[in-house]
C-alpha cells in the first residue's frame, strides 16, 4: 500500500453529474485521450488505484475499463496492466463525434417540438457556432 499521491488523471465523478458513475469515468478518460493528455501506450492505473483516487467502488472502475476495452480505446496485458491503445485517440474522437451527433439530433428534435422550422433551426445552429448565442 503506497501513500504517495498519484497525479490526478481525470476530473471529479459525482452522482449529481449526468450518467451512471462508470459512464462518467468512461467519458472523462475518453476526453483525456482525445485531447492528447493521455497518449497511446500510456499506462493507466489499476482499477483499484483509480477507485481510490476518484472515490468510487472498484466494480465501477472495472466496468468503465471493460467498456473502454470493448471500444478498443484501451487494452489489457495480463500481468503488466492496462494501456491506451495505438488507435485510442482516433477511437475516442470517433466516440466523441458520435456523442455530438446524438446531442445535435436531440437538440434538433427539441427545437422542432418548440415549433421551429428546419431553416430556423439551422440559423440558430449557425448563431451558436459563431458564439453569438
Amino acid at each position, binding site marked *: *500500500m503506497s*501513500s504517495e499521491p498519484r497525479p490526478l488523471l481525470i476530473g471529479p465523478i459525482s*452522482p449529481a453529474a449526468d450518467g*451512471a*458513475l*462508470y459512464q462518467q469515468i468512461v467519458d472523462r478518460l475518453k476526453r483525456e485521450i482525445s485531447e492528447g493528455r493521455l497518449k497511446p501506450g500510456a499506462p493507466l492505473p489499476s482499477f*483499484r*488505484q483509480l*477507485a*481510490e483516487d476518484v*472515490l*468510487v*467502488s*472498484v*466494480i*465501477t472502475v472495472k*466496468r468503465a475499463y471493460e467498456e473502454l476495452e470493448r471500444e478498443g480505446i484501451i487494452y489489457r496485458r495480463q500481468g503488466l496492466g492496462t494501456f491506451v491503445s495505438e488507435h485510442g485517440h482516433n477511437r475516442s474522437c470517433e466516440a466523441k463525434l458520435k456523442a455530438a451527433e446524438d446531442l445535435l439530433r436531440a437538440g434538433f428534435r427539441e427545437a422542432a417540438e418548440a415549433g421551429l422550422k428546419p431553416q430556423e433551426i439551422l440559423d440558430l445552429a449557425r448563431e451558436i457556432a459563431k458564439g453569438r448565442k
Partner: protein
Amino acid sequence: MKANAIEIRGLTKHFPTFTLGPLDLTVPRGAIYGFIGPNGAGKTTTIDLIFGMGRNDSGEIRVLGYDHRASEVDLKRRAAYVGPDLNFQVWGTVVRTVRFVRGFYPDWDNDYCVRLMKAFRLSSADKIATLSFGARTKLSLLLALARRPQVLILDEPTTGLDAVTKQEVFSELLKAVEDGERTVLISSHGLSDIERFADHVGMIKDGKLLLEGRMDEVVDRFRMAEFFTDNGVELPHHEGLIIVRREQNRWHALLDQKLGVHDWLREHGGKQISLTRVTLEDMFVALVKEEEAV
C-alpha cells in the same frame, strides 16, 4: 477461482418475536460488500452470529473457509469487527488505547497505524474524553484496520458522521481492499454511500435475503416506471412489479427488468410506459414498502 470471504448457508436463529433466516449470504473476496436492510431486518443479529455472539439454531457460517464455531480462533485472528460501542474511556488517551489493543495482535502494522492516525487526524496525546463522536469512530476503525485483518466487518460505522469524516473513512476502506485479497462487509443505512463505494450488495428484510449481487447489476436491474391505464383498470399482483403510487389511471411502479415485466404490463393494459433509472435508495424504499403492504 478464489474462495469467498464469507459464506453463510441456511442460517437460522429464533427469537420470541423475530426469526432470522433461513439466510444465505455470499461475500466475494476483495470486495466491499454493502449489507443493507430496514431497522430490525436482522443485520446486527447476522453479524453477531458470525463472531459467535449468540448461537445459531441451524445453518453454517464460514469466513475464509473457517467454520465460525469449529475454528473460532482462526476466524477471529483474521476477521475484525467494528461495532457501535465506542467506549475507550478507561485508557485515557489515544496512545494508551493503541498500546493496549496492539498487544493482542501479532500482525499489528505500526507504520500503517501511524499513517492512519494522520489520515484520520488523530494524535497520540488526544484525550478519549474530549474526542468527538466522529474521532472515536475513526479510532475504533483504526484499531481494527491496523491489525491488518483479512476480513473487516463494520456494523453501522458511518451513522452520525459528517460528510468529510465519512469520505475519510471510505477512502481508507478503498485502500484497505487495494490488494484484492482483503474484504470489507459494511452494514449501513447510508444508501448513497453504499451505492457509490460498495462492489456488492445484499439486502435483507424480516430476516430473509431479498436480493444480492454486483451493485451495478442489482441497481441496473430495476427501473421506475410511469404508465397509464384506461379508467377502472385493475392490475393483478405480479412478481417484479411493485406499485409505488397510483392516482386513478396514472401509475408509478418499480419494475424488475429481469422478469420481463415490461411486456406483461403492456399486455395487461399499461400504456405510454416510460422508464427511469433508479438509485439504490429508490429501490430500497419500494422493496421495503411492498413487503409491508403484503
